[in-house]
């Protein structure tokens, strides 16, 4: 199952990235590297190899930006729950936790949003901002945010363009949008990638732990 979701994450290294692959990773085949696989029950990709082996699928597609540790996260502009346009670049200067979740008002996503809400003060204390992203529209986000009193921004990635751009892997043979969280530093460089579909609260624990360590 992990190897299958790895295939969905395959891409050529983007020609737009100036980041060179780390020498220590050159001998690692990501297919065999446990740390680079998406799993249901949690995997920190902080030490992963992202010198991806191109798959036949990605060989046919255009070059796709993929956010991984050490790479600059591509900026985006999406609408938030109030319909206002929000750009990722607006948050430069402070760490940002960007979490991609499957959909509003599903059990796991609700638990995750409420967990981020309940720990929001801790994120603020660490100087970080939290942004949630799913493919739902702004009206869904508005209702979701109001119902659960979410204090942070949730963005509408209609068409899942940003999800694809960032290379968020799907789960279960593509049946489920993946649940993946990125921690970007104040320069917008990705420092942590955490994936866990069915233990959503762990995203909060792992990202907070990481923020405290940097």
């Amino acid at each position: 199952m992990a190897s299958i979701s790895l295939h969905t994450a395959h891409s050529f290294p983007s020609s737009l990235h100036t980041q060179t692959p780390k020498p220590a990773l050159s001998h690692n085949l990501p297919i065999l590297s446990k740390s680079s696989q998406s799993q249901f029950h949690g995997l920190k990709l902080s030490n992963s190899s992202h010198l991806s082996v191109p798959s036949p699928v990605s060989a046919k597609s255009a070059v796709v930006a993929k956010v991984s540790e050490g790479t600059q996260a591509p900026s985006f502009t999406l609408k938030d729950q109030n319909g206002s346009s929000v750009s990722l670049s607006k948050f430069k200067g402070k760490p940002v936790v960007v979490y991609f979740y499957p959909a509003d008002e599903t059990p796991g996503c609700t638990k995750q949003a409420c967990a981020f809400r309940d720990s929001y003060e801790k994120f603020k204390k660490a100087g970080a901002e939290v942004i949630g992203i799913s493919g739902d529209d702004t009206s869904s986000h508005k209702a979701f945010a109001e119902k659960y009193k979410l204090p942070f921004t949730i963005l509408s990635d209609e068409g899942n363009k940003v999800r694809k751009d960032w290379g968020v892997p799907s789960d279960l043979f593509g049946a489920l949008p993946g649940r993946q969280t990125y921690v970007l530093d104040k320069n917008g460089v990705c420092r942590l990638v955490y994936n866990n579909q069915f233990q959503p609260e762990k995203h909060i624990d792992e990202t907070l732990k990481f923020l405290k360590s940097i």
Partner: protein
Amino acid sequence: MAILPQRHPSRILNQIAPPTRIHTSTTAPPRPRRPHSSPLTLDPAATPRPPLPNDPTLRSNWSHRAWLASGCTTVLISLSKSVDAAAASHTYLEPILAALLGYVLADLASGVYHWGIDNYGGAETPVFGAQIDAFQGHHRWPWTITRRQFANNLHALARAVAFTVTPINLACGDATALAFVAACSGCIMFSQQSHAWAHTTRSKLPPLVAALQDGGVLVSRSQHAAHHRAPYNNNYCIVSGAWNEVLDASKFFEIMEMVIFFKFGVRPRSWTEPNTGWVEEAEAEATSLLS
């Protein structure tokens, strides 16, 4: 699959809509016709009521008995054919193991079916509508299952078994396969009885049944009680309950619900806060409405 109504607290009053038919199935309590109510008021006379202890809908009739007899006959035919074939070929271990496997998988099948009808569809769903409606009524008035007479309680499953197992009995002569079929179908057919026992107070249970529950052979009262508490999304298996822990720990049903949601856009009922049509009414509270 029908898009199910949301169980949203703010739409509780709006969801008590006038029924379009009188239930004749004895698996669900009849609901009286009532005039269309203003969405802001709740007509107490229109509130669905639990069946009285001697309600005809809880009693067995000859149709129920006939279906039960058919189901039992098909299971007994499978069993006897299996025994005959085993004796003729002197193979006993495989049929016995197959029967055990049938018992084990019946529990899994009961959970999957129960999850399906608890979460999807409604009274208007073809084929399954009556069962779905009955299970929703069961969640509201769970104790009524203990008041149902035997054939009344089992006839729907017995009918399904009769239709499913008869062609297998006609086509198959293998001892092992028939042992599996007999055990699996028999346990499925009697799952409503093990379900009823799981709702029965211990003092009213035959000692053997209580012992089988304690031993994990039949689903226990405590395990099944968890299914009747919020968030109503676990402990779906009702034969032995052996699969409940595995299915719940592995989030099997949550995974299925997510896949169905993303593939078909259908939300399961367990994702929404239950409305009054789902939440259990205490027996004393419900029956006091009738006085």
